[in-house]
């Protein structure tokens, strides 16, 4: 019984990247002046959930590349990207939404930061990931809400 429930949970989590009816589809996201003005879900993000997405290796795994003093209790912060400390002093929420959704729209094609709500991905995508975004629209909103709390 327990095993079955776990399996169902896992299946649910795997669909986290699937779109819901009211979400803006990945190819309909409007990038203007390195910003995305409208919430992808029409709802506000939850910064507490966003912090989880930021850490979780199966979700944003943002810590793999970014140091974050707010998470100094967690081990192993990567150095591939800049530290996100004070990121809300440098970027507006609409810009953060653009960076997280598709960093290439802001930093250019060369950036190594993945597009978390984009279907412009690499070749040979794993079968179970095909047609899916890394994060759901709501997860992007949650991360953006979390980043907006990072002021110095």
């Amino acid at each position, binding site marked *: 019984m327990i095993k079955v429930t776990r399996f169902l949970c896992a299946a649910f989590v795997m669909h986290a990247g699937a779109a819901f009816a009211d979400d803006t589809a990945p190819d309909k996201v409007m990038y203007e002046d390195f910003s995305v003005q409208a919430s992808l879900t029409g709802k506000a993000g939850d910064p507490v959930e966003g912090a989880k997405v930021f850490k979780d*290796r199966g979700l944003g*795994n943002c*810590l*793999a*590349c970014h*140091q974050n003093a707010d998470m100094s209790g967690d*081990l*192993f*912060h*990567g*150095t*591939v990207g*800049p*530290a996100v*400390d004070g990121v809300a002093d440098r970027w507006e929420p609409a810009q953060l939404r653009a960076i997280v959704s598709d960093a290439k729209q802001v930093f250019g094609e060369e950036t*190594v930061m*993945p*597009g978390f709500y984009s279907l*412009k*991905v*690499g*070749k*040979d*995508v*794993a*079968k179970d*990931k095909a047609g*899916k975004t*890394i994060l759901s629209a709501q997860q992007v909103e949650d991360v953006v809400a979390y980043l907006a709390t990072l002021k110095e």
Partner: protein
Amino acid sequence: MMAALQMPLTAQADPVDDALVIDDLEMVTRTKAPEGHPFDEVRSGWLYREAETRELEADSFQNPGMLYVEQGADIWNRIEGPEGKSCASCHNDAAVTMKGVGANYPKWDADAKRPINVELQIDKCRVENMGLEAYKFDHAEQKALTTYIKNQALGEPVKLDLSQGELQSWWDRGKELYYTRTGQLNFACASCHEANSGQYIRADHLSQGQANGFPTYRLKQADMVSLHNRFRGCIRDTRAEFPKAFSDELMALEVYVTWRGTGLSVETPSVRQ
């Protein structure tokens, strides 16, 4: 501007400046890159590992990979198959006949008209000279024999002869693949091992992704890991489907990646975390 932000915590991200001496033999772990190379200096992955991991590799008595070298020696001398031959029947003492051989692979195979690595050369001899079947990919004996043969070239500088057959065009193809982004995460080999070598990705200190230490003993897996297994792992980590071992794609990558390590000593069996 952004780089400045990460300065304080990345001071320790530089590779170490130690010398690697194995059995009184000093390894080349840094050397001037060959012409046309994206880096000025080619560096062994050993320089990027933790002190304990580096020490394990430096001490042949402690290095768990040496057990596989011993196992390889047993297979080398073992008579097997309908011809009643061992590898030693034709090649005698590997310390003499195989010295340096491992530093020059992949080579061009004129019969197959494609590059061949040590694993495939072993299969060739098993099939053509011993009446045996090729090993399944990553068969324990395949890894042990490959480790044994490469270990005979310990300390020898990696050097490919790209003028053999069509090896150059496979190098070209490998280079193209090295810069091709794959998977949902949209990374190329170069995203991690060129643009970000020296940085940390989570707990991993990114090296130049060199092939000179393979097969390598991985502490995490407590086993030998072949080069194509490593390639497939790195490709899988981009959330992509990965090619078959010894496929054209991975052979092309092996040619190109091995060339990127030109001049580094063969370190097999290297130890990695």
